[in-house]
């Protein structure tokens, strides 16, 4: 498996911009019809950049709606999508939570809305810094969720997200998740999406069903017990289709742009790894640096990067972990009352009923924006190695760091 393939000839095209700008620029090249916007840290820079682009006529025909709340941000896109518009919004944390009810509605009505979620911790206590509790908590809404490792991937995934969402056999909304501040506010060299390449990659949106006075249709009917199950079942079927579509779209994107960030998953020194770390989002960058050190010392440590959390790539994960001797999931969220992160729970469940008997442990790190440094990853790897050596798991899931003085 390859990682972050950048066509060498494209390096001359790199510019140093803020992550939020790279995403906003990618949105522009998707030629959205309607953007809804509501400010919330650390998402705001994206909609600010887009408002400038709209004000300067850089997104022809685009309607930019300054809504009065995130609940209306997503609801306005439901209406816009119903008449056949390509739509975009961005939010985070409390804003995403305010959307919660409408997220399920948008998925149930099969509107291919694309939204960037700039991941942030959730209140209380109020905290504007990064973790991934917000989007993880929307896991069951029926949205496809892709987690970006860096700003290039977050931007490139906007285009890919539209192509996945608008596929006639998928027709589901997509969240592109990027870590707050760490990705949204960082200035990194990226290749901005080229308009010609974007147009070649992403055709105009032409839905089969729209609200149109010339051909009246009813949207959002009452589904009683005789049919409700089938509506939910068909979303699950669409998620199945999306598993392949996410892979295909990543390949198509690579063909046109030369850039590839993985499909459902990606690997880093994975093939021969005994100790496999599993994670998603920007943690992966730090983890790769640490793994490089281990590899230089000849230790077989590797990484499984999860890109798609919904649909959850069960088969791909089973295959990728088939030769692992121990698995350690590192993530920035917790299911309170289960004392582990959602990815750890799901990963274990994916390996149940298989021949894979490798022990698995989980670490909860970086909540509310606490820095995760290379030494933290090293400590986790060392503890994981100890479990492998001793064959004994003291604690299946642990907090990486708990300060006694605040308890």
């Amino acid at each position: 498996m390859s990682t972050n393939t950048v066509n060498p000839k494209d390096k001359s095209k790199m510019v140093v911009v803020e992550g939020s700008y790279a995403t906003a620029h990618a949105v522009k090249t998707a030629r959205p019809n309607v953007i809804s916007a509501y400010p919330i840290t650390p998402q705001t820079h994206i909609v600010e950049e887009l408002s400038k682009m709209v004000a300067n006529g850089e997104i022809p025909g685009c309607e930019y709606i300054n809504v009065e709340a995130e609940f209306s941000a997503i609801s306005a896109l439901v209406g816009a999508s119903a008449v056949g518009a390509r739509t975009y919004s961005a939010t985070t944390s409390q804003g995403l939570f305010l959307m919660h009810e409408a997220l399920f509605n948008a998925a149930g009505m099969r509107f291919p809305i694309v939204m960037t979620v700039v991941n942030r911790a959730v209140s209380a206590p109020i905290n504007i810094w990064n973790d991934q509790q917000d989007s993880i908590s929307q896991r069951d809404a029926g949205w496809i969720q892709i987690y970006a490792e860096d700003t290039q991937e977050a931007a490139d995934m906007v285009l890919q997200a539209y192509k996945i969402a608008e596929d006639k056999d998928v027709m589901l909304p997509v969240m592109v998740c990027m870590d707050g501040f760490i990705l949204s506010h960082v200035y990194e060299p990226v290749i901005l999406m080229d308009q010609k390449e974007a147009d070649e990659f992403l055709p105009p949106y032409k839905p089969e069903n729209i609200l149109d006075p010339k051909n009246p249709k009813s949207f959002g009917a009452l589904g009683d017990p005789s049919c409700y199950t089938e509506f939910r079942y068909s979303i699950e079927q669409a998620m199945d289709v999306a598993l392949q579509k996410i892979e295909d779209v990543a390949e198509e994107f690579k063909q046109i742009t030369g850039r590839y960030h993985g499909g459902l998953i990606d690997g880093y020194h994975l093939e021969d790894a005994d100790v496999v770390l599993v994670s998603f989002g920007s943690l992966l960058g730090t983890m790769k640096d640490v793994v490089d050190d281990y590899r230089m010392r000849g230790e077989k440590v590797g990484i499984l990067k999860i890109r798609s959390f919904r649909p959850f790539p069960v088969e791909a994960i089973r295959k990728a972990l088939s030769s692992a001797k121990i698995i350690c999931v590192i993530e920035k969220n917790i299911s309170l009352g289960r004392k582990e992160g959602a990815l750890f729970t799901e990963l274990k469940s994916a390996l149940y009923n298989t021949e894979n008997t490798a022990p698995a442990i989980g670490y909860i790190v970086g909540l509310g924006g606490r820095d995760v440094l290379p030494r933290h990853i090293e400590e986790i790897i060392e503890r994981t190695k100890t479990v492998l050596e001793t064959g004994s798991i003291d604690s299946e899931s642990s907090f990486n760091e708990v300060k006694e003085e605040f308890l």
Partner: protein
Amino acid sequence: MSERFNLLTPGHSGCAGCCDALAAKYVLMGVGEDVIVVNPTGCLEVMTSPFPNTAWNVPWIHSLFENGGAVASGIEAALKSLGRKGNTKIVGIGGDGSTMDIGIGSLSGAFERGHDILYVCIDNEAYMNTGNQRSSGTPLGASTSTSPPGSVSYGNPTHKKDMTRIMAAHGSPYVATTSIGYANDMIRKVKKAAETVGPTYIHSHAPCPTGWGFDSSKTIEIAKLAVETCLWPLYEMEDGEVTQVRKVKDPKPVEEYLKAQKRFRHLFKMEDGDKEIEKIQKQADRNIEYYGLNK
């Protein structure tokens, strides 16, 4: 004209004498076929859209309870972007719960932003879809399943929220009150609202036989009594000014309206109930004075 009568078809599951069915029909007669209807959750939505059936012969969308204003905003913006707006009017039709309570923020946003939409509130003065619970449209003294009279209560303790003037205060070019008891007046006002560019608002009084407690043959009669007692003044406002008022030559006492409905019956039986009725009469008197209803 016959086609216009069929924009909302028969066969839906509305109760006999249903105010929503009448009101929605009048709205479509006023607006015509070039419309997209946004219908927040409520009786009208439930009774007209049981999958795989629909009573709507116009494009229709139901999303959620509290987002009618935002959904309508999005449709209007999208049609503009797609170059398909033309004369198509986006019309929200919601009950008092979705309009005056849970959806007021969304509606306020849509009006403040100036979208070219018409929003019609069909006000039957309580949450009828869930079984007659009190809303901010419920009038003083009315008994509902969450504002019952008791040893220390005369029923709902507050007057109705003045939603029409709240919408006018958003700078709407046209708002009007209507009643399903006055079909021609309502159709005319809806037509005017639909033809006015910008966010326009119609608030329609709509008696509910099951919730209010009267025979299903009396819907129109009760609606007329509300106007004749001056508890529901019919007026139009353009750019914030009252421009038309429907006169009531000899206003009837509010008792005539109240005693015809079970929801006010307790006021005629309870000790000091007459004092509550006096407060309701004062509200009617204020309407007469403020709008010059009898001049």
